[in-house]
């Protein structure tokens, strides 16, 4: 099966989404940073009554640290509101398209009620793509040029 058929038939949930990490809008930046560190998470989804309201990424964390912001600010004042999302039924190709055109590193996956069900990232997409051509990607030598082109070596 050609990779293009997979891309246009499989849903985004095949592209290695990670479980969403949801927090309340009243969570402080300090709590958010600690949670991200503990969970090794690159972003938090800010939800109210289960519905996705905003996103707080490591880029936002960097912005706040670099500008010496007050770490006791609630997330609702610093998060990015209504982030781009993909519905759980869209294909991998559509999600990829949205990521490349918007320059997003990650997209929350949502269901009909706009509740986050996962988070798809460039990394997951790359993993998904690599698995469609494993022979050339995973069979690489440990050094780029194992063959010397002269008898005496490099």
């Amino acid at each position: 099966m050609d990779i293009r058929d997979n891309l246009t038939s499989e849903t985004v949930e095949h592209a290695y989404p990670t479980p969403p990490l949801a927090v309340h809008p009243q969570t402080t930046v300090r709590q958010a940073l600690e949670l991200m560190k503990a969970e090794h998470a690159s972003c938090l989804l800010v939800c109210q009554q289960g519905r996705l309201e905003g996103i707080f990424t490591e880029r936002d964390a960097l912005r706040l640290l670099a500008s010496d912001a007050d770490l006791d600010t609630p997330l609702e004042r610093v998060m990015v509101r209504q982030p781009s999302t993909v519905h759980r039924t869209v294909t991998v190709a559509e999600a990829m398209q949205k990521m490349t055109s918007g320059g997003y590193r990650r997209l929350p996956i949502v269901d009909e009620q706009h509740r986050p069900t996962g988070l798809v990232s460039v990394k997951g997409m790359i993993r998904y793509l690599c698995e469609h051509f494993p022979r050339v990607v995973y069979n690489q030598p440990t050094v780029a040029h194992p063959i010397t082109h002269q008898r005496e070596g490099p």
Partner: protein
Amino acid sequence: MVLCPFCGAEEIDGADVCQQCQQPLDDLTDPQPSTDLERFLVRDKVYMLEPRKPVTVAAHTPVANVLRTLYDRRLGCVMVLEDEELVGIFSERDALLRLNTDYAALRHRPIAEFMTPSPETVESDASIAFALHKMDVGGYRHLPVTADGKLVGLISIRDIFRYITDRLPGVQQPPAAAGQGP
């Protein structure tokens, strides 16, 4: 029967070295690409991704200055140099994991204490498949690019992502009728 790529002598299949010129023949048993995309990945070199000029800082730069650089110049990471040698890499992820809420107390410390030392690098004439392999297996988002051991650029996982999606026509023109999210 295989032909030695170095001297043209005929060798038996699976031979490790050429009996005539003693050159290794291991790469003749490497997997051969079977689709267009695989061929591109094996053929095209890292420099074709047009690596960006890396932004560098000295190893003794205070953390606060590095964070400002990352933020003001909209960067994901900087290269840390000492005596013109690449000694580390510091990314926004390191800021989150190693500085975090302690940043206020650590802001005057040198970046060398928080960087990732001795980062993996890739040669600019290595294949894109090789760089992709390094990134996927190592979980790296950025790879410094070197030429003759010298730092010449930086590629990110998004450069490779764009490279691949540019070569997948189905991704560039998605079917218009397909279901969109709410």
